[in-house]
């Protein structure tokens, strides 16, 4: 019996980083879709078929935190991994810390990211 490949949506407004992020996750065997801003990502998530969102926090039009909140309201819980260069700072009223499970510090360690993605899918 064939199982549908897990589909990850990568959201990043820096094209050079988006390209690498998507490429690495594809190399891990996942199906990967790409979006360059929060609104575009939201539309793709609402369309369905997204199992996990890996998103930058600082995005044009709709930031990563707003995206997660909107997705929660519209589609229920879809796991997110948020990427930020500013852990330890307050953004959107939320204080980020290194211990946050769904937050990863940029520059992203791709091995750590792959492990975290795998863990989310196993859970």
């Amino acid at each position, binding site marked *: 019996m064939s199982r549908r490949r897990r589909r990850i949506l990568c959201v990043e407004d820096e094209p050079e980083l988006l390209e690498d992020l998507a490429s690495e996750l594809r190399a891990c065997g996942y199906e990967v879709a790409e979006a360059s801003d929060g609104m575009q990502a939201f539309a793709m998530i609402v369309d369905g078929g997204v199992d996990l969102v890996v998103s930058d926090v600082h995005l044009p039009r709709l930031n990563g935190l707003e995206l997660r909140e909107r997705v929660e309201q519209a589609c229920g819980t879809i796991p997110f991994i948020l990427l930020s260069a500013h852990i330890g700072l307050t953004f959107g009223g939320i204080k980020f810390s290194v211990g946050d499970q769904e937050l990863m510090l940029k*520059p992203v360690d791709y091995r750590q990211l792959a492990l975290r993605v795998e863990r989310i899918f196993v859970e």
Partner: protein
Amino acid sequence: MVFRRRARPSGLGVAAVDSHPSDGLGPLLPSVAGQGDWKSFLRAVSFAMSHELRTPLAVIDSCAQLLDRRAETIVPDELHARAAKLRRAVSRATNFLGGLAATSENSSAFDAGWVDVEQLLHGILTQVLPQGCHRVAMPDNVALMAEAAAVSAIVGNVLPNASAFPAAEMEVSVDVSIVDDRVKFLIASQGSDGVSSCGLSVANVLAALFGGSVDGVCERGGRTVTIDLPLDVCPGYPTICIRRMVL
């Protein structure tokens, strides 16, 4: 590929800069401090600068990881592409730092508080581009005067960015227009490569001080950056950064 970067809310809450010494970013800081919002401004500028530097560094780190992981299987084409990507990232970082330095240099060229906008644009473009590679178009029947420190700091952060990764036949054009009570600077570069938006965040923070914004569209083969600033008085922002003189 096209991407947009819009001025993000800076959370500055800063509306006024009363005095205008003409020496780049530096004098703007104590001026804002005089408004009692020094911490907000400093935080916003530091945040923007940090973001601008971290982005190219993240690209370099990403390239290094991928090269390491794929060392055994990488083909020459991919290797060349990686090398080009690394060089673009380094250019972005150095271009950003150059823009900051140029801001101070450009501003110090204008000692008076108020300077003709056309003169200011020519002055900055002459410094960042070879001779004959730029064009400035101004609106008819009106002379625009800019507060030198403020406007050169904003424009000075954008123009080196617009001319990043220049090709041999590159030209940068600046079209200035008045739309209602706003002044629009449409900065377009043809023939440049790359997709950098480096430097725009700092310009965004500065423009937001006066009720303005910066919007960038970059695509392969060219880029366009629009600076939108209030003309004369802007509600909620008592300090004027550009005023008109009817001819």
